[in-house]
């Protein structure tokens, strides 16, 4: 625990109060110089305003607590929160300042209302593309009604984590995954039915079929229960993010990394909910890995790693990624490579992964929508360049298909293409 800040809670004049004091002083001098009471009477409120403000500071409680949550779908980010004293006290005169993290943008002015002994607030932001961000606690200050003096107050609470990714990722867990390490004592059935091997009994959900209902167990428990099958929930997934710098430039690279990290988290969350094991590898010049694991802790580990993921300064060779993966992950694990495939080097990863025993498919966020947004007013030449870029990208993806399946992600708020990719059998996919 750190030592308390001695300046915490100290009352201080704002610069505008200093301006008022200075103006009052000058007016008083002018009044004495020209022997006129008019300037002096003008100076009286300017002098007394800051003085009265400074003496009107109330006794504040030791700290305030923030409880907040986020709402909204796709790019909409609505944050609802409440600020209240930890002990008895007033919120009268409190002014919260909110920190909006990049890449979120303001949609409307924040709404702050007095609600009894608490302050409720609503922030209207939006995310231009999928992202994982953390919103810091607001800075809260007490201010006098004229806004001339202020005093910081202590705020307790936790930073708000925001994840925005396409909703289709929630259905991604239907994809069959390979299990690379059998559980202790596990003996697999020789023949599995369409639903797979029995795993456990769980409450019935709306998506379950009538064949999945365990009627005997339901009769005993007095509520509807269904059989859970191993095929639905087993397997390992390795998510690889290619974070090497590309020729697109640092700004576009950073945005693509944000999109890829959000997509990776969406995938990981979806599979972790089904108790699959998920691992992560971030590749810049060397591999940073999180071993396969499951559960809430693993989800938190992945979230932290993905939030901290940044595009590296130097690009490592493609082969190093595949070689390094063998140190951390068993071969044969189902691998998703998130890469923009922005240049030739990034497509070279695929054959190396295949040779080292990682059957991969690529989820590729397209840089074209971001390139189109950069220009404020696109000219005819820009439109032509954009068409050429689309052609180049189509050709590169076609080349990458010779090594692995590629799902192009050009509409950042929809991953219908990934859902259809998972839904179609491998044989048909290979044929198309």
């Amino acid at each position: 625990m750190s030592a308390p800040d001695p300046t915490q809670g100290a009352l201080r004049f704002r610069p505008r109060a200093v301006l008022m004091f200075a103006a009052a002083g000058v007016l008083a001098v002018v009044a004495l110089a020209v022997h006129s009471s008019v300037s002096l009477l003008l100076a009286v409120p300017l002098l007394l305003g800051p003085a009265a403000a400074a003496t009107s500071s109330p006794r504040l409680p030791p700290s305030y607590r923030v409880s907040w949550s986020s709402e909204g779908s796709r790019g909409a980010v609505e944050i609802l929160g409440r600020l209240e004293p930890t002990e008895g006290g007033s919120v009268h005169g409190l002014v919260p300042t909110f920190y909006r993290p990049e890449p979120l943008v303001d949609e409307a002015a924040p709404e702050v209302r007095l609600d009894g002994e608490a302050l409720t607030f609503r922030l209207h932001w939006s995310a231009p593309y999928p992202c994982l961000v953390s919103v810091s606690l607001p800075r809260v200050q007490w201010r006098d009604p004229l806004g001339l003096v202020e005093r910081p107050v202590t705020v307790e609470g936790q930073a708000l984590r925001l994840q925005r990714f396409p909703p289709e990722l929630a259905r991604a867990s239907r994809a069959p995954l390979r299990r690379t390490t059998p559980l202790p004592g596990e003996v697999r059935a020789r023949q599995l039915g369409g639903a797979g091997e029995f795993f456990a009994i769980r409450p019935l959900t709306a998506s379950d079929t009538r064949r999945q209902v365990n009627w005997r167990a339901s009769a005993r428990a007095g509520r509807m229960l269904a059989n859970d099958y191993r095929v639905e929930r087993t397997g390992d997934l390795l998510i690889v993010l290619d974070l090497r710098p590309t020729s697109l430039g640092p700004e576009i690279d950073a945005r693509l990394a944000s999109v890829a990290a959000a997509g990776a988290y969406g995938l990981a969350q979806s599979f972790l909910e089904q108790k699959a094991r998920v691992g992560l590898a971030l590749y810049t010049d060397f591999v940073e890995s999180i071993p396969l694991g499951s559960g809430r802790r693993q989800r938190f580990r992945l979230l932290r790693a993905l939030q901290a993921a940044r595009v590296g300064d130097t690009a490592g060779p493609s082969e190093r990624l595949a070689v390094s993966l063998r140190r951390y992950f068993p071969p044969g694990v189902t691998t998703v490579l998130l890469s923009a495939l922005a240049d030739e080097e990034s497509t070279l990863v695929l054959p190396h992964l295949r040779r080292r025993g990682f059957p991969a498919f690529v989820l590729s966020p397209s840089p074209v929508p971001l390139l189109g947004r950069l220009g404020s007013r696109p000219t005819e030449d820009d439109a032509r360049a954009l068409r050429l870029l689309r052609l180049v990208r189509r050709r590169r993806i076609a080349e990458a298909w010779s090594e692995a399946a590629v799902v192009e992600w050009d509409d950042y708020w929809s991953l219908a293409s990934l859902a259809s990719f998972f839904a179609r059998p491998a044989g048909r996919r290979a044929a198309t």
Partner: protein
Amino acid sequence: MTPTLERLFPGLDSRSLRAAAIVTTLAVLMGVVGGEPLALAAFAPIAGTAVTLAIRGRPLAGAREYGLAPALVAVGLVAALAAPSLLVGLIAGVTGLGVLLWNAETPSESVRTVDPVEGLFVPGLGLTVALVTVIALPAARDAVGIAAIAVVLALAMVVWALRGALVADAVPAKAL
């Protein structure tokens, strides 16, 4: 207000404009009642207000804090040149209250949980005391002297009241 104007000058919101209009009108009135030429009485406050609005409209922290300076200079000029009388003094005092109100309106700080008018009570009370002093003493020179003493006393009270805030608390030694 059109969205383009709002985008160019985020400080031009209705609250700020209302306060600016009050101050400008009172300053012009003070000049006219104080016997100044109409050109000066009207031009100085309007010019000062226009410059202030342009400065405070910019999304800069310094502009928000010190942007009122041109308007203060203009109003101060009009007050210095006005012929003293009870009515002019009253208008000057109310103009000072209007300046405080305008100073409190920062459009970019849209979050506000208390009405600025509440903060005008003590300055208004002080102004009333000063005006009563002027009325009670017939000679203008005496009134100026008494008011100057009142200002000095008020300043001393301010320093006394804020000595705790102006001087930082002693930092306890780490060993303790």
